[in-house]
């Protein structure tokens, strides 16, 4: 792998017309302040920040140059729901939405929305989706999050932020449903993760990929091909300079063989 793809030499994901520097700084500040407010929840074992904010957080010094959404997703292990609920009263500055209690809304504009989703590592089907009923914190449980494993926490500005290992999150993003703005954003987040992937991450991607059913492997390769041909967008990662890397990952995955037996 070319060292040029590694994080220390990657000052920013975004190519072309990037958001103004002040906007990036402001968004980073709001993201970190939100995670600071959520520290009681983040301290619970197994809770992870997932979704499009992860590339922002694993950039050097959590630079948050990739502005793809205005909320942050927290994955709650369903087995830890009671413990997480016990910590919610400690959260200051956000409150649950009346219409949808799994979404917490900031009391002021210096924070961003928090979206609680369910994660169940015992699920066998990454396509499964169901609701875990709860009066206080109902969770939409996504089977694809069963591919995610805890990684090394990000430590920035006195915060400890639990994030997933890169490989599982990248595969989860590549299982996104194509089409639409959400699908495109997920693929660009996958690109941001791929840019940061090291050889050990790629080996883990191989392992995760080969364990999937053929239909999902096809989805991953199909989405990589779509990503390769996507046009650049202001403030988003530009697939253009990374097309060779995407092609190499495609060939690598297509060459991965299941272990005999």
């Amino acid at each position, binding site marked *: 792998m070319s060292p040029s793809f590694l994080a220390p030499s990657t000052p920013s994901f975004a190519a072309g017309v990037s958001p103004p520097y002040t906007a990036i700084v402001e968004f980073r500040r709001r993201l970190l302040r939100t995670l600071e407010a959520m520290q009681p929840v983040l301290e619970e074992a197994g809770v992870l920040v997932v979704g499009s904010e992860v590339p922002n957080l694993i950039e050097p010094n959590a630079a948050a140059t990739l502005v793809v959404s205005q909320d942050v997703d927290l994955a709650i292990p369903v087995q830890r729901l009671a413990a997480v609920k016990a910590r919610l009263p400690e959260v200051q500055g956000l409150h649950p939405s009346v*219409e949808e209690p799994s979404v917490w809304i900031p009391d002021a504009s210096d924070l961003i929305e928090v979206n609680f989703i369910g994660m169940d590592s015992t699920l066998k089907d990454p396509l499964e989706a169901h609701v875990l009923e709860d009066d206080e914190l109902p969770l939409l449980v996504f089977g694809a999050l069963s591919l995610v494993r805890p990684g090394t926490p990000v430590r920035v500005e006195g915060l400890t932020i639990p994030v997933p290992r890169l490989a599982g999150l990248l595969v989860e993003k590549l299982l996104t449903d194509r089409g639409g703005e959400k699908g495109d954003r997920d693929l660009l987040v996958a690109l941001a993760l791929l840019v940061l992937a090291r050889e050990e991450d790629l080996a883990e991607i191989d392992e995760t990929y080969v364990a999937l059913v053929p*239909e999902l492997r096809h989805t991953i390769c*199909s989405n990589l091909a779509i990503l390769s*041909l996507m046009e650049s967008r202001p403030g988003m990662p530009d697939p253009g300079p990374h097309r060779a890397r995407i092609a190499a990952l495609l060939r*690598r995955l297509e060459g991965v063989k299941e272990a005999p037996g």
Partner: protein
Amino acid sequence: MRESLEKRVRAARSRAAIRAWEYRQRNHAKGMWHRLRRLLADASAAYALTEPAARELLAEGYPPDPVGERMEPPKILLWATAERLGSIIEKHPIPVRLGADFLTARYVALVRFDDETATSTRNSDGATPQTTL
């Protein structure tokens, strides 16, 4: 169950059903778009050729890719090296994308990322590994 979450579950299940349908279609006509995208994902550059230029390359042993042959009307898509294409005058670069330029061209030469200087006649069915991550 809360209606908002229930709607999202229904949407997720609907998308899963569509994905399964697309997978079953992958070797049929509906799978053509995936095959074209997969082909282009390996290409660092694409050139629209004139028919004589394409015939010249075919005669030299650069084979047409099966993906183009299965289109209707058939399209000649072939892999060539940048070195070889450099000496062909009757060509013009087109975006590596499923756009109008690519779709309307009858004869297209593609350059693989790793074949920008090397010699190769592989097509999309070839299995020879190239740059690896």
